């Protein structure tokens, strides 16, 4: 795939992820016990032999820069290979913050042109899936398409949540010409949704982005570029029917993690051969997990550096998580180096890095009916969110749908009991 250049849109910060994306773009969100979300598209590219990649990022890029490094962990180092971080820059006629996905690519068209690709792939960096892009590229070439969009099947009543498309395509055909496309329509029943993987002819991409930049006031592939191309360009839809995991909201992120678990997990990381940067977060310097005589662990993920003395079920534990004797963690996701002290209980909780939960704390108790009072659309399913570095003092109780802002220390908590829907700042 020497003539393909891939651009990963990795910059977005979505407010829907609350405290989890305060210090990182959503593509750098930890996932699955040791990975970052962007590891999935990066590993897919690597396994598809697409070896030249640009990553477009602008929000809190440090976490991402640090994670990508020189790209060696995905085998992107070599004379004809490479991964480049493309950050917004000034002192240039185009220099400004990226105004949207299409603008981000537009501002880097010069760089893309220097790579002399025939085909440019634009994909988002925040989905959990395994896909061989090879057959997609083949389809794109066979149809001599100007643009091929990857589509997944949805329930028609969910049309308003997605960029949706109409396609007339036999079950045995890999794809067909795109008949219609609408971005998050208020009404309408569509069967197919865009998975935000776009394959462009390089010269067409430059042409449509330049035209949009001259005329438009909006700069999104879904809202602006694709609808404008329909009718005047050869645009195709390509079907994908494998597992597709979203991580755009707290609920989606939690559910997608839970798809790693169960008697027959939907996500098979070993088969997918997902790679990550093992230097980052000292992944490789930790000893193997130690599980004590008192431990009880079921249906859970653990990695090096974990020390488990208590009970863990239906949970994802990242490296260095410690669960003391008598503690009980259920249906939770604990990022790197979280500590759960003795007799503490965590249920349906997502804890960012370095959270410590004091002895006897209860996080996740009682009725689930009351959504978060400050962010009711964001947190209503009963999950609690503990920000990075939070230190919950002993015997603190949080009911449900609570958010604790990052770095709060013991003295910052003036109560022992926080009702459902509370945000602690």
């Amino acid at each position: 795939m020497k003539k393909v250049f891939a651009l990963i849109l990795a910059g977005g910060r979505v407010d829907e992820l609350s405290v989890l994306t305060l210090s990182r773009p959503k593509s750098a969100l930890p996932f699955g016990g040791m990975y970052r979300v962007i590891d999935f598209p990066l590993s897919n590219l690597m396994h598809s032999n697409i070896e030249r990649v640009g990553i477009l990022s602008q929000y809190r890029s440090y976490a991402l820069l640090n994670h990508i490094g020189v790209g060696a962990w995905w085998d992107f180092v070599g004379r004809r290979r490479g991964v480049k971080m493309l950050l917004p820059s000034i002192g240039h006629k185009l220099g400004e913050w990226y105004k949207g996905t299409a603008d981000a690519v537009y501002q880097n068209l010069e760089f893309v042109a220097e790579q002399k690709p025939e085909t440019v792939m634009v994909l988002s960096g925040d989905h959990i899936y395994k896909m061989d892009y090879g057959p997609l590229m083949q389809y794109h070439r066979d149809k001599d398409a100007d643009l091929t969009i990857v589509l997944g099947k949805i329930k028609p009543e969910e049309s308003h949540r997605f960029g949706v498309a109409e396609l007339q395509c036999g079950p045995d055909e890999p794809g067909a010409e795109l008949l219609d496309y609408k971005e998050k329509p208020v009404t309408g029943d569509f069967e197919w949704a865009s998975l935000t993987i776009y394959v462009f002819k390089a010269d067409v991409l430059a042409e449509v982005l330049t035209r949009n930049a001259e005329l438009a006031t909006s700069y999104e592939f879904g809202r602006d570029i694709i609808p404008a191309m329909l009718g005047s360009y050869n645009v195709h839809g390509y079907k994908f029917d494998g597992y597709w995991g979203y991580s755009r909201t707290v609920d989606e992120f939690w559910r997608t993690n839970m798809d790693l678990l169960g008697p027959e997990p939907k996500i098979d990381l070993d088969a997918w051969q997902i790679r990550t940067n093992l230097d980052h977060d000292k992944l490789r310097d930790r000893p193997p997990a130690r599980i004590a005589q008192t431990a009880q662990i079921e249906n859970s993920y653990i990695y090096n550096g974990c020390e488990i003395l208590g009970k863990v079920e239906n949970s994802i534990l990242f490296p260095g998580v410690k669960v003391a004797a008598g503690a009980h963690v259920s249906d939770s996701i604990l990022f790197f180096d979280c500590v759960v002290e003795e007799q503490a209980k965590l249920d349906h909780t997502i804890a960012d890095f370095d959270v410590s939960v004091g002895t006897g704390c209860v996080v996740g108790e009682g009725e689930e009916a009351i959504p978060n009072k400050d962010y009711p659309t964001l947190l209503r399913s009963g999950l609690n969110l503990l920000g990075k570095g939070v230190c919950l003092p002993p015997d603190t109780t949080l009911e449900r749908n609570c958010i604790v802002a990052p770095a709060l220390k013991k003295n910052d908590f003036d109560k022992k009991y926080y009702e459902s829907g509370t945000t602690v700042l």
Partner: protein
Amino acid sequence: MLLAGGVGSRLNILGAARAKPAVPFGGIYRIIDFTLSNAMNSGFNTIGVLTQYKPLSLMEHIGTGDAWDFTGRMRGAKILPPRTGQKDSDWYRGTADAVRQNIDFIESHKSDRILILSGDHIYKMDYAAMVRFHGEHEADVTIAVMTVPWQETEQFGIAITDDHRRIIGWEEKPKKARANLASMGIYVFNTDYLLHLLRTIPQHDFGQHMIPAALQKARVFGYPFEGYWRDVGTVRAYWEANMDLLDPQSGIDLAGWHLRSNIEEEGRVSDRPPSFLAPGGNVRNSIVSPGCVIRGTVESSILSPGVIVESGAVIKDSVVMHGTHVGREARVTECILDKLVRVGDGAVLGIGDRGMANHEKPEHLSSGLTLVGKEAEIAAAVRVGKNCILCPGLVLSDYPSSFVESGATIRRQAQ
């Protein structure tokens, strides 16, 4: 200079295809990682690793030395295998001879002092402190020594010291020792003095020849070491040291020791995902490395990366290495399973008479442990006793019957 040529013959089939320092340990490590990590944590930046016996695993493992931070302009880890020189074949004939044959390496890396290490032991030591001791005592040679039980003195070089820790007498593996201060095989030499010794003493071993000769003329001191130290040269000692990882009081502390390993070898073992403790599985008192899938029961055992334990299987008091698969309802008790072993459904390993030592190698295997070699296959419902040796690469047709009695050894049949 790290002497890593050890054959490890008493480790039996564990050491059959790899040098002793390359034998896997503690889930994700190899024995040599302890010495390499000590060298890194003591601030050393150049290390020569002297290999001879089956060096392939070892060479791959050390790689560029990057895992122990030995890469950089002023840093390096060099593998020093035997080479032909003035004579046609210059195999290393002993510890001192191995160093002697690499005098050019020593001279090309200017140094005042040389630290000589072996890659065979499980311990944590600050070599920088030992080098300071060496300087403070204006020593020509310093030997790390530790107190051992009197009944073990005949396995070691024994130092007799005066009140100032100067070594005034030396007994190499004495039948009846005069002291119980044992050499750990770790030496600091003034470089000039080492070169002088190597050039004037024609024999080949540090313990037997160089040290006794040095005592006559030079200042030789004993640097006292206290703490966890194990020579895992026997199957039993190897198993016990692994089990020490399960006991927080044992003195072995992988995280606190800042132990490092090269996890990129062998087709990127490192790419294994986290371990999945599946519904119905049960793990207690164990070490679990990445990439394991556990649907059965694991108790008091050490699992290396990628071990699969199917539902209903029970592994107890065992060391299980990379990629081994234990089938449904299988039972594995007090076993050491090398890499990529396949245990069939319902097979039972490690039952029966502990008193029946291995018939062929009672000196290797008499404590009840059963050894299964790399890539050996064990048929469904086979029963295997204690102190058995199932050789590497066994296939189903190699078994004379579905019962392997305690003390038996099963080999590959001639093709």
